[in-house]
């Protein structure tokens, strides 16, 4: 039992945080949103830092990392509200790594690791898929079989989600696709658990931002001649926000650790679903309270806290909402 990050994990997390602090401030992010919705420059930098190859097998140009290796990266992404579709690509790459033939892996994964290829996964042929407009390849589950197609061949309507992520409504047809794997149900479930654990980590990062910025606001905003943080009614509410954040962080640790270590799919699924339930509840609690404690300012488009609110609202339901995972948790 240990909660330590290895030296390598720590160095990577530090360099990602440094990059985001320098190049991914709220104003930088606004410009990306006003433009294409994602930045190829940022993507190139993420690849340069090794993030696109981090969880891929060394046999295909990756570093052989796991969910725990990505956890602090996703936390940092959550804090900065990063728009680039790294997790969708890594999730799809994991699926290729688990389900595809060696030839297909050779054709796809080294390009992903080098940052030249972006992929996304759709759980059904007509779906709303984050990152699809920026992707080169689309994976799609049809019945139990997994297909792959060039994104250019898939009809799609791009749009922005509630939290400004680039997404598309796709209409996937197997006629212009290749079969990647038959009977891929178990591999899809595993890759979804991997993605869910990391969505939890991302939400934990966004919660950290919401808690920190609200605390700062309570210390600086004055009413009745004193900082509003001197009022006990507000103190107790922000304490509960921090408790929710800590509990959610613990569950994200558990989920990532079990995704990496568990040989037993039911044990893994149970940990991941438990984490998603707690994270969904905490995300809702923290985001709602962060807006309330900011008063009118919390509603404003100008403050990052309202963007973090939207991100947490979506992350709480992405990869299955609390009800979905309660059903799964109870069935295991």
């Amino acid at each position, binding site marked *: 039992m240990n909660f330590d990050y290895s030296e390598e994990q720590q160095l990577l997390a530090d360099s990602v945080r440094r990059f985001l602090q320098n190049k991914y401030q709220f104003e930088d992010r606004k410009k990306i949103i006003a433009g294409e919705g994602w930045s190829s420059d940022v993507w190139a930098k993420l690849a340069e830092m090794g993030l696109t190859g981090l969880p891929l097998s060394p046999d295909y140009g990756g570093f052989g990392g796991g969910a725990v290796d990505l*956890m602090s990266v996703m936390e940092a992404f959550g804090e900065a509200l990063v728009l680039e579709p790294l997790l969708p690509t890594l999730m799809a790459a994991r699926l290729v790594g688990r389900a595809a033939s060696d030839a297909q892996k050779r054709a796809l994964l080294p390009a992903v690791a080098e940052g030249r290829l972006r992929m996304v996964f759709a759980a059904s042929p007509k779906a709303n898929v984050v990152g699809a407009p920026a992707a080169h390849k689309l994976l799609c589950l049809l019945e139990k079989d997994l297909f792959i197609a060039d994104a250019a061949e898939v009809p799609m309507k791009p749009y922005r989600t509630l939290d400004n992520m680039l997404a598309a409504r796709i209409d996937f047809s197997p006629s212009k696709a290749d079969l990647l794997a038959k009977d891929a149900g178990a591999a899809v479930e595993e890759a979804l658990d991997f993605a869910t654990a990391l969505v939890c980590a991302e939400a934990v990062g966004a919660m950290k931002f919401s808690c920190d910025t609200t605390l700062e606001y309570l210390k600086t905003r004055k009413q009745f001649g004193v900082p509003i943080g001197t009022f006990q009614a507000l*103190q*107790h509410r922000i*304490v509960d926000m921090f408790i929710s954040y800590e509990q959610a962080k*613990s569950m994200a640790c558990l989920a*990532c650790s079990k995704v990496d*270590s568990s040989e037993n799919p039911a044990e893994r699924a149970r940990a991941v679903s438990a984490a998603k339930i707690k994270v969904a509840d905490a995300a809702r609690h923290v985001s709602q309270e962060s807006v309330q404690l900011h008063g009118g300012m919390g509603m404003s488009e100008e403050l990052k806290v309202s963007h973090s609110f939207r991100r947490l609202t979506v992350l709480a339901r992405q990869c299955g909402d609390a009800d979905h995972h309660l059903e799964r948790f*109870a069935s295991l």
Partner: protein
Amino acid sequence: MDLNYSAEELAFRDQARDWLAKSLPAELKDKGHYSKDELLRWHRILAKQGWVAPAWPKEWGGTGWNVVQRYIFEEELGYSGGPPLIPFGLTMCAPVLLRFGTEAQKKRFLPRIYQGEDFWCQGYSEPGSGSDLASLKTRAILKADKYIVNGQKIWTTLAHYADWIFCLVRTDPTVEKRQEGISFLLIDMKTPGITVRPLILMDGAHEVNEVFFDDVKVPAENLVHEEGKGWTVAKYLLGYERMNTGRIGESKRQLARLKEIAAGKMKDMRFRDRLSRLEIELIALEITNLRFLDRMRRTGQPPGADVSMLKIKGTEIQQGLTELAMECIDPLAGDETSMALQKKYLTTRKTTIYAGSNEIQRNIIAKMTLGL
């Protein structure tokens, strides 16, 4: 990061679990209330094994286990279903003596606490001083080599079993900062002038008391630390590294029992989802507790206000478990089993009030952790 126990840790856990299962007398298992003899019987079984005070320094009987081992043992102990180890001597008075006591005080009291020869209780709360503890009025005036104590304590848990009480008393009512007029005093419960009166709680049980002091003479050598430093001592205890604040092992046992009781109710999705959420709260608390221990291990810092978070969540979970258990039975039932479950719900309401109410715990986190 790996949240699985290592092979050594699992072996340690199995060893503790096996020994506890083998050593706990069947008649002591899962009782709601325990007599003094029953409490001490289990205490002495653990003392004989050398496991009654794992966190103490080795020279006084501690085990030398690391924090993870100690946590595992605490959890297994809670999960065993045996009588609780009463904290007043083992994890309250003893750490205070180890930190602030004289050699004579340590030699006199620690071995007797360890062996379960002295039963201790805690004299903090007073009728006018609950959450505002620093307003306490019980007066101790030094005359020659004795303190003369007058006043009243309330909510004193198991005072009717106790041989000794450690008290916060006011030795100086004139200092501007009222905390600096408080001292920490050890008082023999057999001293003339002490009266213990039961307070019966709503489950009908006698657990807490009022304790009256009427010209009680206490040798000056029973002062711990310096006069006027009682508040420092109390604050030290607040942040003392108690592994068991969240009572996770006990809650795990209650959860397992609840699942047995609730077997017929699991088809009710409304109930099932509430049970799942509570179970997940408990998992989250356990991991949070382990994260705090891990941080303590790495930094060497005592946990401080982290303990407050564990107290808040741990007690909320305990209450949630008793509430769900009660919902599994007919509200009008009068049989013994049903009544015990309902009384457990009643008595567990105390947990968010005692040992610093959960509101006080939130104040502590706001001040100490968040800087508000």
